[in-house]
């Protein structure tokens, strides 16, 4: 029962992240909304798998997958957004502040 609650919470987070990936106006906004919400949502789903299986082989595999997912996806998103900025994509019209511009050149 705990596993079902955790999986439901995770899918709610995933739903919010995917609404963000549809609705937000800018590449940077889309990435920062979707990465955080979807990473935490999938970590919650894997934690639900751990609670369902206990500490058997499947539960241990899910427990190992959580830090890999957490660090891997965040590092990949950071590298992707840095590459996007260097590629020359402009910020949206409603953006008011760009601190990274001074740090690049």
């Amino acid at each position: 029962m705990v596993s079902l609650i955790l999986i439901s919470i995770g899918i709610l987070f995933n739903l919010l992240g995917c609404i963000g990936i549809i609705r937000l106006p800018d590449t940077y906004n889309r990435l920062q909304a979707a990465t955080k919400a979807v990473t935490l949502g999938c970590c919650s789903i894997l934690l639900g798998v751990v609670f369902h299986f206990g500490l058997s082989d499947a539960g241990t595999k899910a427990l190992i997958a959580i830090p890999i997912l957490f660090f891997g996806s965040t590092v990949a998103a950071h590298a992707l957004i840095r590459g996007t900025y260097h590629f020359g994509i402009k910020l949206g019209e409603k953006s008011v502040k760009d601190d990274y511009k001074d740090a690049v050149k």
Partner: protein
Amino acid sequence: MSTWLNILLYVQIGLSGICMYRIIRGPTIPDRMVGADIFGILVVGVCAIISIQTEKSFILDIGIAWIILSFIGTLTLAKYLTGKKLNE
């Protein structure tokens, strides 16, 4: 329990379809890459739910391998984006 888990599985697959929409309709190249990155994370959730439904543990192996391949692929695409500016 199984019915509710089925509904959650279909919702998760539908969210992957939303990411496919962003991959197809992205205005620029980095938008498509963002869609592919988020798609790679969502598939791990699908693998986890299927492993609960079928009570098999090897599907989680597929999930872990998918995480690592998605990580390497996104890093490669980001390097491609950065390196193109240096060549210009």
